[in-house]
């Protein structure tokens, strides 16, 4: 592609990072930032190779860490061994590590933006599919497997096939009570779990522009649930004011130079996308997932769908199996479904704004007796800020558990998990079978709906609480 052609944001970021291009081969792309955690950095197998750029690599512990009393040793010996392996590797290779208990520790996709490490126009990778979160800043950020983690450690570059481009435009004003989480659930419900495969999605339109950085991160985070290789939003003044003054953001003259550069990133007028989807913001409602993949969602005013209504045979079959696993019946109003557990947390919805939204709902109310409710802040910094604002007291006063930072019940690698048959309203990103514990039943919702559901004991919006 020539530089004189109109280009999309993702194409611009891509072109800036091409180290080598050859006919019939994937482009070799330079990686500006590599985030690592304990699960994909367990035993570095570099065959005697060294880490090329330890200073472009940041490690933390998030997947396995317990979220209860951090003064106690990690009870699970297998988790502890993995965390020890990460610590030893980081020490050996000179990689910065924020381990359990450190004030900068947290979910890898929460701490990158928080530290100002995530900046527009960068390429960011991590051995975690929710790396797409960082796309909220106009960075090209994607998840990789262990082999590619090793590849980046050794070379700071990755051979990658050129992705397709896809525009998802959400125009108009979001109705009151409709959040970024509802926007992305509606998008995935529209394009399906495979709708973004092979593509980088650029989220556009006035409803996206009006989202805070936290909201944009929620949207980009779940790009992978639509199969997309990455998701991003063009950087603008919202992005710049979020970044300014953060520990790793450029300072003084460097900040001005960076701003000039970042302002050139948005897609050119007339840039063509391979695929385009448009949603009307005004028609969106709070969403709840009913099935076992993130495209199986419905507005909270709706009901559990009848599998026989699906035209596509594989979707029909998937819906049948999903209802069986979830213990649901076609035609049941979503608001009649009761829950056992409410989980507020994960790289999708564990930032300060998410906790504020949930706290505002539960303030002065009580979690319904019999419902287990927990809040797991995305990082130690988020936790400290929330406590400074008194959000922890609002949560604990209402009957929520207030935990330490980590991935926790999003993927049940630490002790926080569902029991078989237990039904959970969760602000996380995946309602896969067994995701939150074997036999557990996950319904994906926004923080506001999660909080209202904790109070009502069944799916509810804040507006309908007494």
């Amino acid at each position, binding site marked *: 592609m020539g530089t004189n052609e109109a280009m999309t944001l993702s194409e611009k970021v891509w072109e800036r990072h091409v180290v080598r291009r050859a006919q019939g081969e994937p482009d*070799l792309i330079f990686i500006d930032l590599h985030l690592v955690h304990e*699960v994909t950095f367990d035993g570095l197998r570099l065959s005697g190779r060294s880490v090329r750029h330890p200073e472009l690599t940041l490690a933390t512990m998030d997947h396995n860490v317990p979220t209860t009393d951090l003064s106690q040793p990690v009870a699970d010996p297998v988790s502890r061994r993995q965390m020890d392996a990460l610590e030893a590797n980081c020490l050996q290779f*000179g990689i910065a590590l924020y381990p359990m208990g450190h004030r900068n520790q947290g979910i890898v996709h929460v701490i990158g933006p928080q530290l100002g490490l995530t*900046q527009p126009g960068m390429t960011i990778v991590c051995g975690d*599919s929710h790396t797409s979160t960082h796309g909220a800043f106009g960075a090209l950020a994607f998840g990789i497997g262990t082999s590619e983690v090793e*590849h980046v450690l050794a070379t700071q570059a990755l051979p990658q096939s050129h992705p397709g481009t896809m525009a998802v435009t959400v125009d108009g004003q979001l109705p009151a009570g409709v959040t970024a989480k509802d926007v992305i659930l509606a998008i995935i419900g529209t394009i399906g779990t495979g709708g973004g495969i092979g593509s980088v999605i650029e989220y556009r339109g006035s409803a996206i522009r009006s989202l805070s950085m936290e909201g944009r991160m929620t949207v980009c985070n779940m790009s992978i649930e639509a199969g997309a290789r990455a998701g991003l939003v063009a950087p603008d003044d919202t992005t710049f004011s979020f970044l300014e003054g953060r520990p*790793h953001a450029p300072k003084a003259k460097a900040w001005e130079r960076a701003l000039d550069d970042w302002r050139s990133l948005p897609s050119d007028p007339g840039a063509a996308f391979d695929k385009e989807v448009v949603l009307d913001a005004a028609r969106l409602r709070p969403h709840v997932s009913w099935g076992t993949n993130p495209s199986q969602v419905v507005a909270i005013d709706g009901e559990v769908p009848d599998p026989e209504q699906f035209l596509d045979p594989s979707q029909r079959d998937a819906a049948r199996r999903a209802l069986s696993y979830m213990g649901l019946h076609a035609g049941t109003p979503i608001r009649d479904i009761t829950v056992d557990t409410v989980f507020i947390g994960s790289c999708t919805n564990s930032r300060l704004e998410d906790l504020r939204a949930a706290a505002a709902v539960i303030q002065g109310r009580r979690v319904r007796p019999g419902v287990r409710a927990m809040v797991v802040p995305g990082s130690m910094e988020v936790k400290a800020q929330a406590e400074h604002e008194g959000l922890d007291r609002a949560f604990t006063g209402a009957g929520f558990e207030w935990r330490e930072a980590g991935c926790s019940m999003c993927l049940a690698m630490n002790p926080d998990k569902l029991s078989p048959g237990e039904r959970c309203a969760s602000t996380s990103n995946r309602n896969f079978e067994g995701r939150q514990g074997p036999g557990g039943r996950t319904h994906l919702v926004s923080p506001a709906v999660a909080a209202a559901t904790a109070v009502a004991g069944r799916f509810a919006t804040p507006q309908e609480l007494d």
Partner: protein
Amino acid sequence: MDPILRVTGTALPLDRSDVDTDQIIPAEWLKQVERSGFGRGLFSAWRADPDFVLNRPEHAQATILVAGPNFGTGSSREHAVWALMDHGFRAVVSPRFGDIFRNNCTKVGLVPAQVEAGEGAALLAAVQSDPALEVTVDVDRRVVLAPGAGIEAPFPLDDFTRWRLLEGLDDIGLTLRHLDAIAAYESGRPAWMPALSAPAGGAG
């Protein structure tokens, strides 16, 4: 990784769409520091059902997995590929793969053959009705063959990846041949881009 010209054998029909990597290998298995033994975790939740296709003796020797669309979506865990290979699979056929899973496959030597939806469904049905049907996933010719069922389904595979699979090449080694280009790129990076400092023993 070992060179792969083609995979020939019987196939296991997994007639489900949207098989995410959490199903292929549940998260509990990801805590292992070693890379071996993941086959025991393969589809471990579904295997609890004695009727699950992986438990059927007629498919015990299968080396090719034939699945519905959107196979390997979700988590980036390469453990999913290791589990499939540890169990004995050498190729997976689906009308559509999750991108990260597909990428992971070609790094480790599991062949991801993405066929047209109709051909995928036909192969699935053929393998279900005849578990002994011989299937070949031919990397060299980029085609899935089941002569006994009259199926010949081409699949896309870029020249570079095909060459790597045929030769069994480690692509880190291939990238290291281009260190000059990487160094040249590095010298042109803006100075304001973020970098970390790491004093021994902890983060800066």
